[in-house]
């Protein structure tokens, strides 16, 4: 059973310059357990997707299922969410905010252990108006965890955190998934952070899913880089599997195809100066996928 199942999600927004398609028939499954990263450039539809899962925005079409149930108020009781920037009522203290949210969730929860978990226990009774962005981010995490949820969605949870805070967040998320069995869906622009913390990622671009898979599988997908002239001849030989990359060409082929390719290029009169395997990191995959979809 998937923790989150999205099927054919479509969402359009009316703007002054006409309708904008934020999500285009998006189907995605977030498996139970682990940290799932949601990546995409600005405007890719990440926040809209998270808001649809949280029930803040209605999809024009498609279905959302949480832990096997249709995403209604009952199913969302097992969901914790930190959506968008961490904005709170400035007139409340951290303890009061969690009390308000606990009462809204109709649970009785002691806010202090959660505030201790995110390092805000000493600021529990200070007005949120005086909190730094990092403190608000931590408070947002505490709010998301208030109901002891089985699924947590976090929108840019490391925004505003210093390196130490980011490391603590990484530890916290791993603790949630490994010790408590919580499924975490997070969006982030910090690709190296996502690569370190996420088990799986999905990359969105223009409201569509462009790739999805285990981080370990994605970064393992090597590509052959060729410094060869003329480039046009190399690209012609590779067809859809070739693309310019820096001063050369990158080829999406397997190692077993390499000797035949090089022989063919030589036969075509191509001068090969260098050929080496690129093992991409997540940033390269992200850029390749999102540029390719534009």
């Amino acid at each position, binding site marked *: 059973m998937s923790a989150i199942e999205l099927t054919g999600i479509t969402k359009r927004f009316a703007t002054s310059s006409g309708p904008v398609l934020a999500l285009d028939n998006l189907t995605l499954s977030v498996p139970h357990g682990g940290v799932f990263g949601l990546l995409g450039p600005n405007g890719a539809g990440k926040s809209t997707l998270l808001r649809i899962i949280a029930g803040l925005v209605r999809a024009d079409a498609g279905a959302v299922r949480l832990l096997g149930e249709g995403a209604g*108020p009952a199913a969302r009781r097992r969901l914790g969410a930190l959506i968008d920037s961490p904005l709170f009522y400035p007139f409340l203290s951290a303890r009061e905010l969690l009390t308000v949210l606990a009462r809204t969730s109709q649970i009785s929860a002691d806010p202090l252990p959660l505030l201790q978990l995110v390092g805000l226990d000493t600021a529990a009774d200070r007005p949120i108006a005086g909190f730094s962005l990092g403190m608000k981010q931590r408070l947002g995490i505490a709010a998301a965890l208030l109901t002891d949820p089985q699924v947590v969605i976090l929108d840019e949870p490391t925004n505003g955190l210093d390196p130490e805070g980011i490391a603590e967040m990484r530890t916290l998320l791993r603790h949630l998934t490994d010790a408590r069995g919580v499924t975490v869906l997070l969006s982030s622009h910090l690709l190296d952070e996502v690569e370190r913390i996420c088990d799986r990622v999905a990359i969105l671009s223009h409201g569509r899913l462009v790739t999805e898979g285990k981080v370990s599988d994605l970064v393992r997908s090597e590509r052959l880089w060729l410094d060869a002239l003329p480039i046009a001849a190399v690209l012609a030989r590779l067809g859809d599997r070739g693309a310019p990359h820096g001063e050369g060409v990158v080829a999406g082929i397997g190692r077993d195809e390499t000797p035949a390719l090089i022989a063919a290029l030589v036969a075509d009169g191509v001068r090969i100066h260098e050929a080496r395997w690129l093992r991409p990191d997540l940033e390269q995959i992200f850029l390749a996928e999102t540029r390719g979809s534009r």
Partner: protein
Amino acid sequence: MILAEILKLRRQRAALFWGFLFLPLFMTLLAFLLGGGLLKPPPGALVSEVRLFRSMIRTLSVSGNPIGQLFYAIGGGAIFAVEYRYSGWRHLVPRAARERLLAAKFAAFALFAAISLLLALAGDVVAMLVIPFVQGLHPVIADTPGNAAATLLLSSLIAFAELMALGSLVMLVAVATRSAMAAILVPFLFALAAAAAGAYLGADAVRSLPLPGYAADALRHWLEGQGSPLIAALTLLGWIALPFAAAVALFRRQDLVSE
């Protein structure tokens, strides 16, 4: 959920004061000022005839006063528009059904409006009974009709219903416009326009208009033995139920992309 709304409003001290506490305080102070400072007892008087019942009924009419409605709309705006102002829906909507969230807000408004009316009544009673003592007189309650308790209770319910109609309208405007300012000003201007129409066109000309203020007035007249309460009661209930239902329907479909 209602407790959550109460805590939020308690911490918005300015809105709580101006929305629900200022009017009872002002009316009490005004009663002390007018009764104790400006109206001197006749020389040699030993007792003061206090028309407590009439005064309390008059105090309850604050619910229909456009200025009174402005202050209650300020309180309502603080309850119904706070989530739009401080992006609060993103924390609340995933936790509970949308209609229940609005219902909790409406219940909190009802509670604070009821407390405010009770405070206004209590202030009136204190002023009416204390002023004679301040003047060295013994207060004697001069108007105690046989049905005083029932009339007072019904008058209180009418005033409360009139405020609920206001609260319902404030809620609808807050949801529709996502603005506290509009949620306060639109119902106030509506009440002001209705009062102005009554003043310019005459009470008889506007009495049949299905507006909450006129319906409440018709019910007050019925308490005095004039007219029938049915249409007026239905009108007032309609002004509570219809904007409430419209606000819920609108909010259930509202995209909260950016509150």
